[in-house]
């Protein structure tokens, strides 16, 4: 995957990052993010793809017994070690600027361990 230093962060990307930061250790699948963020799938997946390409998110196939679960395995997304601080930084920047993106992001993200409030 091609990685760039700092991508152009859209409102949709901020909303996804915000949802991921709420529970940074949890993995989420596409339609789950769709329900949490309220973004339509037409913009959610391009945003997920961008975040994955810059290395802020990583994805892998769910490990389940498809027969037992009676559904196909999903693709799960989670923040990378690089993505978590970058996401916090992007959200803080959006809030500072107090533009549309800042209002969209809503409440400040949960501070990481050792990070001041």
């Amino acid at each position: 995957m091609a990685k760039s230093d700092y991508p152009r962060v859209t409102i949709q990307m901020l909303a996804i990052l915000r949802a991921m930061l709420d529970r940074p250790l949890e993995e989420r699948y596409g339609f789950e993010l769709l329900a949490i963020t309220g973004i339509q799938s037409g913009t959610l997946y391009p945003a997920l793809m961008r975040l994955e390409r810059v290395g802020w998110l990583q994805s892998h196939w769910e490990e389940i017994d498809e027969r037992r679960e009676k559904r196909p395995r999903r693709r799960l997304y989670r923040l990378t070690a690089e993505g978590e601080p970058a996401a916090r930084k992007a959200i803080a920047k959006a809030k500072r600027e107090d533009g549309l993106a800042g209002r969209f992001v809503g409440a400040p993200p949960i501070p990481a361990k050792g990070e001041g409030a």
Partner: protein
Amino acid sequence: MTVLVVALAFAGSMAVAIAIGLVTEDAKGWIPHLRRHLLNRACDRLPSTERDRWHAEWSAELEAASDRPLWSLAQAIRLNVAARTMARELTPPQPLGERVRSQGTAAVSATSKHLATLGGLLRGVRETAERLAGSELREVRAFARGVGGHYAEQMRQITALVGNVVRGGGTRRRDDGLYFYFRLLTTVLSLIATFALALNLGESLFR
């Protein structure tokens, strides 16, 4: 009178309920097919290297949401929008000259394909008209032979008349049956071919 209105309203509501039930039942059958078609169409937009991954991901998500058929159908439609955006981002931008050339080639290819179709259709129409005109000619010839008289002159006139029909000429009256159907057929076929051509051109230009 009131009883009649109530009875009619009851019958109407029953009919609507039955119709809705039938449509809903029917939808359960065709929505998964339509959803699969839309998903395949979305994935076809993506570069071949990415296709399998996104197909697997999206089909899993849609299948998990199959208990909400209309919602999942709407998502399948939106995934086409997603795929279009993703394809644009995943495909390296071509220089303007290259883009114009490739789109021009696609447009010419689409045009030639449809011109061949149009040509084939018109040839078919012409052959049918010739056959029709031929049978008419035979009938008229038999009649002329039967009545005798100025056979050569009659044949000349009839041949000219049939020739006009085949060429779509204007010597016949518009209420003439054969002429009318011939013109109607060619007009309809031309409209269909033009529409298909425009559709394909549009698709190749704005893809």
